[in-house]
């Protein structure tokens, strides 16, 4: 048996030349199919182009310029906005608040979601009820939920303070206390987003073959060992997915803070995340160039975090099979 010769590695230019020399380009059928595909894609491309790609490129242009929002003639300022941003104490306060939020809300939400998903994957009674109950907060509109939470945590007539009072703990002013404002937002996000993560984890758990558990049972592995040696490693692709989307979402936290604190940055800027800082700069102070610099800086931070996570994933994520 002769061994097949390895395919020679082509350069990009050679690949492009090969593509244009291929017979497929001379086939009318190819052009008809392509045209059809592009027509189907056109509406989406137009919407994405107008509302995503154009603003994405234009805000980069804005970040390098200074001028009134109403006038297209702008002064080129280069990286001035970025330099100023890195010296702005409000930006660093916003970065710190965002990091604090991400570091507490994401791991806690994932841990609790995994815990409840494993429980809901066992043979417990009222499983359907619990699944619905955990998922309900996720499908509740954030604005409506945040208004309710604002009432729950109100200093004078909030339900949470009544609960604390029952245990003899004095009432707390969660909304106006700089030390409690962000923990309250974190608690809200855990309640709100845990249900979604549970559903994703449940899908992952149900994809793990029962044979692994049967084999482990024969070998005498207990529940804890089965979790750490089978469930957790085989769930890492799902965990990785949940981690990425939770992290990106957490970096962009905005709605709940905006509603709970009536569009402000919270007491002494304690709830001012980067997105709130961005919004206030753009639509409160109307400094569009500076706001675009904030948006791009945040984009780079999220991008770097995602790259780091992907690099770590290569070492830690097990795809089974």
């Amino acid at each position: 048996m002769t061994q097949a010769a390895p395919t020679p590695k082509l350069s990009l230019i050679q690949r492009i030349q090969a593509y244009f020399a291929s017979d497929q380009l001379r086939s009318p059928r190819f052009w008809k199919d392509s045209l059809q595909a592009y027509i189907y894609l056109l509406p989406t491309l137009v919407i994405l182009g107008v509302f995503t790609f154009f603003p994405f490129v234009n805000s980069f242009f804005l970040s390098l310029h200074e001028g009134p929002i109403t006038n297209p003639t702008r002064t080129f300022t280069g990286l001035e906005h970025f330099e100023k941003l890195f010296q702005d104490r409000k930006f660093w306060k916003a970065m710190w608040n965002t990091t604090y939020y991400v570091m507490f809300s994401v791991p806690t939400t994932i841990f609790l979601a995994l815990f409840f998903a494993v429980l809901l994957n066992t043979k417990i009674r009222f499983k359907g009820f619990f699944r619905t109950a955990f998922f309900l907060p996720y499908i509740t509109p954030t604005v409506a939920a945040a208004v309710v939470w604002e009432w729950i945590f109100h200093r004078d007539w909030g339900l949470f303070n009544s609960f604390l009072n029952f245990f003899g703990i004095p009432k707390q002013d969660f909304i106006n206390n700089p030390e409690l404002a962000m923990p309250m937002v974190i608690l809200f996000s855990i309640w709100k987003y845990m249900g979604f993560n549970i559903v994703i984890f449940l899908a992952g758990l149900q994809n793990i073959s029962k044979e692994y558990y049967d084999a482990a049972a024969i070998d005498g592995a207990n529940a804890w060992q089965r979790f750490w040696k089978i469930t957790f490693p085989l769930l890492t692709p799902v965990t990785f997915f949940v981690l990425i989307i939770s992290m990106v979402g957490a970096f962009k936290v905005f709605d709940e803070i905006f509603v709970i604190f009536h569009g402000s940055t919270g007491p002494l800027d304690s709830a001012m995340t980067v997105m709130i800082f961005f919004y206030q700069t753009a639509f409160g102070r109307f400094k569009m160039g500076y706001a675009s610099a904030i948006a791009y800086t945040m984009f780079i931070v999220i991008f770097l975090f995602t790259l780091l996570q992907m690099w770590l994933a290569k070492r830690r994520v097990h795809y089974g099979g």
Partner: protein
Amino acid sequence: MFKKGLIFAVLLATTLAFWAPAQDKIQVTFWHAMSGGLGETVDTLVAQFNEQSETTEVTAVFQGNYGDLFQKNLASVAAGEPPTITQMFENWTPSYLQPALDENALAPIQGLIDPSIVADIPGIFVSANTYTIDGEATLTTIPFNKSATILYYNQETVPNPPTTWDELLELSQSLRQDTDGDGEDDVFGFYMRPGSSGVGELYLTYLKMAGGSIIADDCKSVNLNGAEAVTAAQFMKDLADVSLTGSDFEDGLFAAGTIQMYYSTSAGIVFATRSVGDNFPWTTFGGLQGPAGTSSVIQGTNLGIFQMNHTQEQVEAAADFVSFLVDVPQTVFWAQETGYLPVRTSAIESAEFQDFLANSDTYRAPTESLDNAFITPGLEEWSDVRLTIADAVELILVGGVDIQETLDQLDADVDEALSSVSDGISCTG
């Protein structure tokens, strides 16, 4: 096929029947941010105008809150298709004029409305609506919904309002009570919202009461760290220390009896009236004296007419509507229904409005406050500056910072923000 054609013909005929007569009149669009009862009063005035005008049809369009309205106006000007008339704060107006734009998008009110109307507008409003256009001071916009900052108080617990800063401090302290015996006060004399953007305007009011000035004549620098500024800030801090501070709106706490006094704009009279109902008697006061006298910040918007993308005919039709709105009967009706100030001297002095004041005590204070009032500078940069001031005041009130250091930093930050103000610009404040 015949059936479909018939349906189409009926629909077309119906649409044209409703549409055609309106097209005979000159179309004017009026974008506003007046919600609830305020919006209903706007609609009533618009309907009155449309009924009496044979040439002009005004369509009022509610655009959301003030922030939404400004964003939409900016976008419409950037797109070259603004409405005919819109509301604008003094510091929004420069965004629609040179040098922010290559050509002025606004048609100055001066020259469009009868000079006798201009002569009848209180001087404070005239100067606040005057901008430098082609090197000349020009009345560009016209006052519409203007309110004054006044003290609201519960007449059951505060029979006589405090007239000096010291009295306000003493009363705020003495009215504090722990009614449920849990060791914490639950009834307060005074209430402040340190985190609100309006706290900056409140600070400027106290600064004026202390004898301070806000901005230099060239509009390029402020004086927010002088002795008067420190006195005003120290007073606010002392007041905050004996008061309830929070983020709830004032009228709810006032109606619940949690607070007995608060400072707010007269635009809030309608909300307080609705919240308190018949629970207890209350009224307003505008004569609180600081070391240098009394003062009140006038807030609210003005009306501007866009010439951008509009014919001269439309601009003149818009001016007719604006003249109608500020005509004496209409501005009195507007004031009676909403709590805003009448914008004509003859309207304030009219028998009808004076009769109204005689029967509506709460509306007296804002009108009387006009004599000692001020309006914040009409600079484009002021959107940024007012938030910077609010941030510093919040730090002073609840952040435990050194007052002089914070004001020094504030003064420097605002001066930097104003460094881009063009030469030859006039501003009030």
